[in-house]
């Protein structure tokens, strides 16, 4: 039978062949943790090899002690549309964090630890920055269990060869 109906190419699309994505996560606030995680998850769902590199404040995302407690601060953020004098009042940060977490949950977007699980289950790679670990006196035991390794900048440059790299 010579049916000429269209069939999606999925795996063979030239634009995605051999595509690789590296995302450097350098911020430790709740609102800045999500962009990297969401893009990584989307890339993995498209069959793209994906690496996340956590450095400096980004360690908050993979530090067992902090990963579930990231905060959002309206201070110094004009996009929060809160008067500067008000945004710094006691209790404002925890209130803003609570509100943001509720909104995230309402969209069925997972909390940070579960998001990392999802990325690992989807085949993603998580790397922790060696210098940050040394500065903060942390070892791999202090970090999320499924980290692929603690690596230096040179190793990350090797891993990211040929990749599209985003700095968040």
């Amino acid at each position: 039978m010579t049916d000429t109906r269209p069939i999606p190419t999925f795996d063979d699309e030239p634009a995605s062949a051999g595509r690789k994505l590296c995302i450097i996560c350098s911020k430790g606030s709740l609102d800045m943790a999500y962009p990297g995680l969401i893009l990584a998850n989307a890339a993995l769902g498209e069959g793209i090899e994906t690496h996340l590199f956590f450095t400096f404040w980004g360690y908050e995302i993979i530090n067992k002690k902090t990963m579930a407690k990231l905060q959002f601060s309206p201070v110094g953020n004009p996009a929060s549309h809160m008067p500067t004098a008000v945004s710094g009042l006691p209790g404002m940060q925890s209130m803003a964090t609570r509100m943001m977490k509720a909104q995230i949950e309402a969209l069925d977007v997972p909390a940070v630890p579960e998001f990392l699980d999802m990325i690992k289950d989807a085949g993603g790679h998580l790397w922790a920055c060696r210098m940050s670990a040394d500065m903060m006196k942390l070892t791999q035991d202090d970090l999320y269990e499924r980290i692929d390794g603690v690596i230096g900048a040179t190793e990350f440059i090797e891993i990211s060869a040929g990749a599209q790299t985003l700095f968040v």
Partner: protein
Amino acid sequence: MLVTIAGRQVHVNDEGFLTEFDEWDEAIAAELAADIGLTLTPEHLEVVRFVRGDYRAHGTTPTLRRVTTAGGFATKRLFELFPKKPAKKMSYVAGVPKPIGCV
């Protein structure tokens, strides 16, 4: 456009996705799966039935995240059953549009 799949006339879009929810059946699913290199197993069908049920109930194709949380299928297993692009592949086989959600 009108095409023949599993001996039946059905409507598909430019990419080959079914456009009429009710034109789908398991014989068509098996042929759609074969199109993209998959052999449809009962486990695939279980996922596909969830995707169709969720689409029917909510009017949108569930994202991969939703298939795991609401459907109870493990992320890892979904990547094994529908390699590389699970969300797109399962929606193709299920005869529903590609999912548009972010997570």
